[in-house]
């Protein structure tokens, strides 16, 4: 009987430790899933994406907001900011689609980014954040 109680207590302590470890990992150690490993929820052209947002921003935000998109388009411009992030503008300079490749991804894909030219077709994957004057895509990467 005494042995059984000890065993139960041991199991209880073990489970509590596992739960505490999981909570610590989930809150403090867990890394964000990289965009390379994300499967696209939608595949479409940047023109179609902008058209959908332009027609009904609220419905488009509900459909695409927070989702991973695979977009095809021609490059309008490529700009690097002082933090090392690269912004690809697609469709139109003011009212189009803006894709931000963060500085860490820029380092990983330096050759591909350096090779980008205005007017060239490109495929990018990233997370849709919503629309301001343009549709904003963050955490982007170039897909070959």
């Amino acid at each position, binding site marked *: 009987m005494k042995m059984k109680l000890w065993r139960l207590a041991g199991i209880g302590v073990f489970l509590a430790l596992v739960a505490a470890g999981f909570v610590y990992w*989930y*809150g*403090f150690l*867990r*890394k*964000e899933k990289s965009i390379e490993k994300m499967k696209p929820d939608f595949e479409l052209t940047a023109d179609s994406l902008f058209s959908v947002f332009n027609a009904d*921003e*609220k419905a488009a*935000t*509900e459909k695409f*907001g*927070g989702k991973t998109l695979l977009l095809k388009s021609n490059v309008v411009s490529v*700009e690097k*900011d*002082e*933090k090392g*992030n690269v*912004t690809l*503008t697609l469709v*139109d*300079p*003011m*009212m189009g689609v*803006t894709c*931000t490749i*963060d500085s860490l991804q820029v380092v990983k894909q330096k050759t591909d980014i350096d090779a980008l030219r205005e007017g060239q077709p490109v495929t990018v994957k990233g*997370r849709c*954040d*919503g*629309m*301001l*004057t*343009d549709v*904003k895509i*963050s955490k982007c990467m170039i897909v070959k």
Partner: protein
Amino acid sequence: MKNRIVWLTLCLAFSLTATAQNRYFTKTGHIDFFSHTAVEDIKGVNDQVTSFLDIATGEMVFSVLSRSFQFAKPLMQEHFNENYMESEKFPKASFEGKIADLKTIDFTKSGKYPLKVAGKLTIHGVTKDIEAAGDLTIDKDKIVGQPVFSINPEDYGIKIPGVVRQNFAESMKVTVQMNYQLYTPKK
């Protein structure tokens, strides 16, 4: 919807006044907010801010998407979007205001000027009058505006549960950096 109308109106105004040399914009401005307590530091970074500046009138407008804020830990980002900002319900935050001391800035002369802005800040669907101070740096045809705001989340209806309130500073520092370029309309 109101934000969208403001943005479209501004864009239209920019397009119609194609020859004007007093309009600047950026789509890659930065906004960071920072909270320091003994428990933890919380920092959110947004590098996709859209902003317009009219140096003739001093009008400054910027808008951000809540989802574009990045955090060091995924859990912070999840709590920020789902529990505090309620990003699905309130996807945008914006500021519409004016440079308060416009006459003290010589936009034809490169240099660093003290900046004061005043206007209306909308976060989480709540709009409040606000003032901010900072710097404005002019370098030929580039302008960098850096106002610093101080905000209390509760003023904007953001509810932070008592059990984690000690993790957040009462007042958060919001640092803005807009690297404006002269707006050149498409020909």
